[in-house]
């Protein structure tokens, strides 16, 4: 044995690794329960989202003569010179490659997929990890929102929606995109880009063409648009939240497994070292006894 590791040192390492495993296991369980809650929130948001989407689709199809749709500022398409990019990350780390992936997606989007030069991006950071990244590398950040991705609520979404809407309607930016992590399942999440503004109305089914509208279709559509934005942002944050917690759960499960593997390995080493020590002691005693016998 090249390095003389005493059994006592090995025992100390085993104890410390067991402590780590206990912490990572606790984190795994916390993440699992938060993930379930986030998934339930996604389901609970669905009926509202589906109706808003369907109504918007039908109304947009119905009210448009195209000129009239153009009159809605939130539907207005103009040549894109300046873009607001909302980057959704988590506040806390230890979630595997979750934040790295979504940040890389955002960087790709800005440097490769869009023709606009970098200085024409306004980046809004949602989540501390994204904020830290932007600050460290000096990217153009105009606003930051933290402490909303862990457990998103619709109230927390409203200021964010307002900022995007205002910057778009005042003409500061010509489009707003969101980069976030889409939740596919517990083991799979995928960074995605969503266009928030101008709103692309979904396909209408024509189901509500003979409805009565109060006060009138145009006013209803006008009221529908800001809610559609809020709803989309809320959904994006829920997806990001479910992704964060499941990524953390899986990362922590792996960490716990690694720690336990390490403990098993070290226990073996410990037993070997202990045996070696005993063997050495026995042979020393035997040698001593032999020496004594020889003397007599």
């Amino acid at each position, binding site marked *: 044995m090249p390095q003389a590791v005493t059994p006592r040192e090995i025992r100390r390492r085993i104890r410390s690794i067991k402590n780590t495993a206990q912490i990572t296991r606790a984190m795994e369980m916390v993440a699992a329960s938060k993930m379930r809650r986030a998934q339930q929130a996604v389901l609970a948001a669905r009926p*509202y989202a589906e*109706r808003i989407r369907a109504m918007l689709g039908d109304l947009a199809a119905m009210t448009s003569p195209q000129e009239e749709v153009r009159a809605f500022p939130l539907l207005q398409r103009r040549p894109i010179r300046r873009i607001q990019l909302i980057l959704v990350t988590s506040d806390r780390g230890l979630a595997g490659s979750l934040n790295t992936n979504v940040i890389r997606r955002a960087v790709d989007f800005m440097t490769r997929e869009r023709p606009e030069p970098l200085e024409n991006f306004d980046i809004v950071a949602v989540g501390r990890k994204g904020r830290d990244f932007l600050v460290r590398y000096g990217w153009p950040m105009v606003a930051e929102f933290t402490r909303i991705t862990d457990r998103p609520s619709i109230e927390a979404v409203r200021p964010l929606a307002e900022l995007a809407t205002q910057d778009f309607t005042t003409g500061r930016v010509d489009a707003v995109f969101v980069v976030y992590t889409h939740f596919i399942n517990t083991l799979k999440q995928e960074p995605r880009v969503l266009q928030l503004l101008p709103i692309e109305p979904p396909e209408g089914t024509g189901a509500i063409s*003979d*409805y009565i509208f109060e*006060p009138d279709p145009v006013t209803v559509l006008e*009221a529908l648009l800001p809610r559609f934005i809020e709803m989309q942002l809320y959904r994006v944050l829920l997806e990001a939240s479910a992704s964060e917690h499941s990524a953390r759960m899986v990362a922590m499960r792996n960490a716990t497994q690694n720690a336990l593997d390490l403990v098993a390995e070290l226990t073996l080493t410990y037993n070997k070292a202990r045996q070696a020590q005993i063997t050495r002691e026995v042979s020393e005693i035997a040698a001593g006894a032999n020496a004594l016998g020889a003397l007599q």
Partner: protein
Amino acid sequence: MAGKLRVEVVTAERLVYQVDDADMVIAPGAEGTLGILPRHAPLVSLLSMGEMRVKRGREEDSLTIFGGFLEVANNVVRVLADVAERAEEIDLARAEEARQRALARLRERRADIDRRRAEMALRRSTIRIAVARKRRARPAPGGPPLPEAQP
């Protein structure tokens, strides 16, 4: 189920209320109060803030609604509310407190921004209090009395 209305109230966050045996819905429309009976023509209306009532036989359920949409089609009344709560969910003490706070702020007459927010808060808390009180004052006739509010 002929002659009955199915009623759903949803917000972006959750399903607030759902029944399928309503006889009449009374809701705070943007253009005035809406009364909806079975076989109502298809309708989409904006909602303002106020009380929404759902009559079911001899019972009546009360909800607060703060903005949103109401959609009627095929005997289904669907409310997509910005904020909504059932009467029994309202924390009366908290609403009273909010109302006092708003009144105090309005009496002070400071900056204008404060004022608008205080007025909104006053309206919201007044509606909540009215809905919560009514629920307690009028148990369903014939049914067992409602349990007292938890301390």
